[in-house]
């Protein structure tokens, strides 16, 4: 492992730009951490620390110099990998028919994702299996993802709703990054302990002033990470969870959660693995031009399961159940992993503070075996 001093951090950004990357990273905006283009280290949220509780998020400013002193905000990298709105094609009217005039081949920029948390690496791996793991691939996702450089940041402190340890995704990145940084900002020291994860990472590192890490520096970083792991506020018992939920398809807890859930879809928008989308077809006033757009959708919306005969999931009860069972049970059947990475966003950004870990735990403690599946 090597050390990059804080004063040389801008060299990392230059090294990325030199390789034609558009650097995306965290910025403090509207009282929260958002993701946007980063031009220099000064764009990063210095001295910002987030306090997260169910249904609550607060960004506290302190006098320290830490630039990664918070954890995850409401946005995640899916914003770039499969954008909230994407034009699939434009068409123009031609006689009795139409002609496709452009398609979605317009490439996205080459992104360097800076400040990807270990749980978010887990989420991106899951995105990969959704969009590039089966019979079909999403061409735009695949090209954006293939070109993306991942600069991870390990979490030396969990936020109030984190449970990455339960989901085996953090707080230390172990794979699928180019560089992984652990920020040490204490007692007059401010530097990054850096893991190299790829040849690309190595080559970028060579453009940045760095030195070999001392044993005690590595130990301090690992120490902070294990303290962070031990300090997780939440946990989710995953043992046998898919079967447990399948056995409790008619559990009264679904009624109870439906009384609290507003079906606002926030949890699905902030979730880094939720991938549902719908399409909008539009024309201009003359009807000579038409476009087809894909946009994020949510299984909480009222017409999500509409078919010719009616609507399949008619209640909040069944929509919440679908969301949670998809995440924690069906995902295993579909993609071989859990759909949850333990980032806690759905808990933080739920307006009424519904906590997926509590819901799962409650069902576990009051399990009824109704259906054999």
């Amino acid at each position, binding site marked *: 492992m090597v050390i990059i001093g804080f004063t040389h951090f801008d060299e990392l950004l230059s090294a990325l730009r030199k390789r034609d990357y558009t650097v995306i990273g965290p910025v403090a905006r509207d009282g929260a951490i958002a993701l946007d283009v980063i031009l220099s280290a000064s764009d990063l949220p210095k001295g910002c620390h987030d306090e997260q509780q169910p249904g609550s998020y607060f960004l506290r400013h302190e006098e320290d110099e830490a630039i990664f002193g918070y954890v995850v905000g409401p946005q995640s990298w899916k914003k770039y990998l499969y954008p909230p709105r994407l034009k699939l094609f434009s068409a123009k009217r031609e006689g009795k028919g139409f002609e496709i005039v452009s398609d979605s081949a317009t490439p996205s920029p080459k992104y360097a994702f800076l400040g990807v948390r270990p749980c978010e690496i887990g989420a991106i791996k899951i995105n990969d299996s959704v969009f590039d793991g089966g019979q079909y691939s999403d061409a735009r996702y695949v090209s954006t993802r293939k070109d993306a450089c991942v600069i991870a940041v390990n979490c030396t402190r969990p936020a109030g709703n984190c449970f990455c340890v339960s989901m085996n995704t953090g707080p230390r990145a172990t794979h699928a990054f180019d560089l992984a940084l652990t920020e040490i900002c204490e007692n007059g020291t401010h530097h990054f302990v850096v893991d190299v994860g790829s040849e690309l990472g190595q080559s970028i590192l060579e453009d940045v002033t760095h030195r070999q890490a001392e044993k005690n520096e590595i130990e301090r970083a690992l120490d902070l990470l294990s303290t962070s792991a031990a300090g997780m506020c939440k946990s989710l018992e995953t043992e046998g969870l898919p079967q447990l939920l399948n056995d409790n398809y008619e559990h009264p807890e679904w009624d109870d959660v439906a009384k609290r859930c507003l079906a606002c879809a926030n949890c699905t928008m902030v979730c880094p693995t939720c991938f549902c989308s719908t399409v909008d077809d539009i024309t201009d006033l003359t009807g000579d031009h038409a476009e087809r757009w894909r946009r994020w959708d949510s299984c909480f919306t009222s017409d999500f399961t509409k*078919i*010719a*005969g*009616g609507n399949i999931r008619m209640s909040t009860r069944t929509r919440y159940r679908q969301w949670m069972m998809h995440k924690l049970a069906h995902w295993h059947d579909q993609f071989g992993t859990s759909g949850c990475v333990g980032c806690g966003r759905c808990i933080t950004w739920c307006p009424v503070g519904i906590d997926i870990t509590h819901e799962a735990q409650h069902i576990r403690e009051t399990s009824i075996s109704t259906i054999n599946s």
Partner: protein
Amino acid sequence: MEDLTIILRQHPFLRGLSDEHMQTLIGCATNVRFAENSRLINEGELANKFFLIRSGRVALETEVSGRGGIRIQTVGPGEVLGWSWLISPYRWHFSGVAVMDTRTIALDAECLRNKCETDAHFGYEMLKRLASVMERRLEATRLQLLDMYGITSSGVMP
């Protein structure tokens, strides 16, 4: 009589009936044919018969003012027509029209009722068989009520 026993034995409604009960029943049975468009039973009339259909097809009809005879259901080979014979006040709720030449075994209702009253084992046997027919018929009617092809579709549809 020998022939009739064989015919009766072949009908699914009487499958597995004991020899003793078959003897009880056969005294009430006659072989009846109906030509196309003839009526087996009439709505409102006394239910004095019970038919085991051997071949052909019978439509159950009800009269709806302004719409004429509405056909609710058809019964065919191996099925039975009517249970009003067993349930007071023993009147038909539907009419039964042969939509094609139809062969039946007609069982006299009064004869059958008397035997059911005097021989409780036989009565229970008849009731069990009829209840099973009614259960299936009710289930089918529920499905029909849903008008499931009305708006819904299947396969993969828009």
